[in-house]
């Protein structure tokens, strides 16, 4: 057994993961910029960190990791630091996934560690697998987005033409949709958000969780298609919905949908008073 507590190890690792993601988004190395970036951090990610932290704090203070388990956690931390040289955030996801899988399948893991493992697995899936799939099937994915925009424009009578990922409005303005603006990006966030919300309060999944996820995914695809459809209207529309106030509104709506789905799946209002039931 190690001398450092399991709880502290998990919190250190969470801090490293969060610092890494914030630092990756920071414009330059300065305390002010890092704080500002942290304050502007993705709300869904904050939900995920909070769920992990909540579960970590529920681990008994006297609990200790075995030397082997501590080595795995420490190795993950070193790998996260060394991979900073490569600068690809998806690799953080690969490590989070591997560690999550390890915790979920750990023989002697208590309930909180397994829940943390499930959240890390889902978060890693969002950061790594979703990115890998998007890269591998980007052309196909953006074709689906483009097709949905085409359907929307046809419905409103504004459709001009579409070639692959390039959609043209009846006015002649056209937009080429690339992977960064695909609905896939935000839909993949649903997985860790839903898992984090569920695991915050309970340690098992229910069939209704899946229904909430599918419903939420459909809602996010509709919102993104509307956004892309509005961008295709004109250059002014593109600028507003991509760079200006419209982009902010879309982000707020998308975040609200994800949080609503997470809350719906977790159903905290059904929980008995006293909060999460956790193993001590």
């Amino acid at each position, binding site marked *: 057994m190690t001398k450092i507590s399991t709880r502290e190890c998990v919190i*250190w690792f969470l801090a490293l993961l969060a610092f890494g993601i914030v630092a*990756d988004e920071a414009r330059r190395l300065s305390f002010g910029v890092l704080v500002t970036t942290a304050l502007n951090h993705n709300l869904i990610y904050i939900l995920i960190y909070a769920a992990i932290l909540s579960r970590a704090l529920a681990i008994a203070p006297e609990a200790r990791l075995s030397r082997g388990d501590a080595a795995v956690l420490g190795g993950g931390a070193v790998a996260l630091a*060394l991979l900073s040289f*490569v*600068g690809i955030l998806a690799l953080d996801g690969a490590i989070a996934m591997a560690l999550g899988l390890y915790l979920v399948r750990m023989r002697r893991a208590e309930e909180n560690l397994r829940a943390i493992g499930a959240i890390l697995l889902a978060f890693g899936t969002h950061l790594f697998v979703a990115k890998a799939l998007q890269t591998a099937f980007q052309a196909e994915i953006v074709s689906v987005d483009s097709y949905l925009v085409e359907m929307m424009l046809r419905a409103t009578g504004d459709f001009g033409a579409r070639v692959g*990922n390039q959609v*043209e409005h009846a006015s002649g303005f056209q937009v080429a*949709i*690339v*992977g960064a603006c695909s609905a896939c990006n935000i839909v993949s966030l649903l997985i860790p958000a839903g898992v984090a919300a569920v695991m915050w309060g309970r340690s098992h999944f229910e069939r209704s969780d899946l229904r909430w996820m599918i419903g939420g995914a459909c809602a996010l695809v509709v919102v993104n298609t509307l956004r892309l459809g509005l961008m295709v209207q004109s250059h002014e529309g593109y600028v507003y919905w991509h760079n200006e106030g419209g982009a902010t509104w879309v982000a707020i709506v998308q975040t609200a949908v994800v949080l609503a789905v997470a809350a719906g799946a977790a159903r905290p209002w059904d929980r008995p008073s006293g909060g999460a039931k956790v193993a001590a």
Partner: protein
Amino acid sequence: MMVMRALFAMCIGLVVLIRPGGNEDRRGDAVRAFSAEIRAVLEDQGMETFPHRGTLENGLASQVVWFAPEGCSEQAAAMPVYISQDLDAILSVNDVLGWEVEMHHIGQSGSDLGRVGLVMRAGWARLQSALGLAEVRGPMHQIAVAVPDACPAARDVDLRPVWRDAA
């Protein structure tokens, strides 16, 4: 116990030292200014550059230089030859549009270091800069030129003046 704490603290220190700047390099004002510089070079060579008819829906429109090299069809000319320092965006455009991508590194024109080589060099450069060991600009040194298949003449455009100026 102290060993584990020191290990985690060291790892946090490393990520905080190395990572900041990546996003700035990819999306910053300097990139946009550099695109304008490239455009000026193209125009000096008699290329007609023009505003986009559509917009690449990736937030990088201001980094896109559109021009029509002589001999390209009107259809090909309507597509941009995409010049950016955003390696991810270039690879993304390459994947989606099926363009051939040529990678260049300022100061080492024509060298194709490959994606991993470039990003590792950028990470090392950032660490050096953070530690005050060198004045470096990280991935700002990358230029990628994507050439549409329908417009092979675009490959003959001489971008060396840009590399020299920026190196």
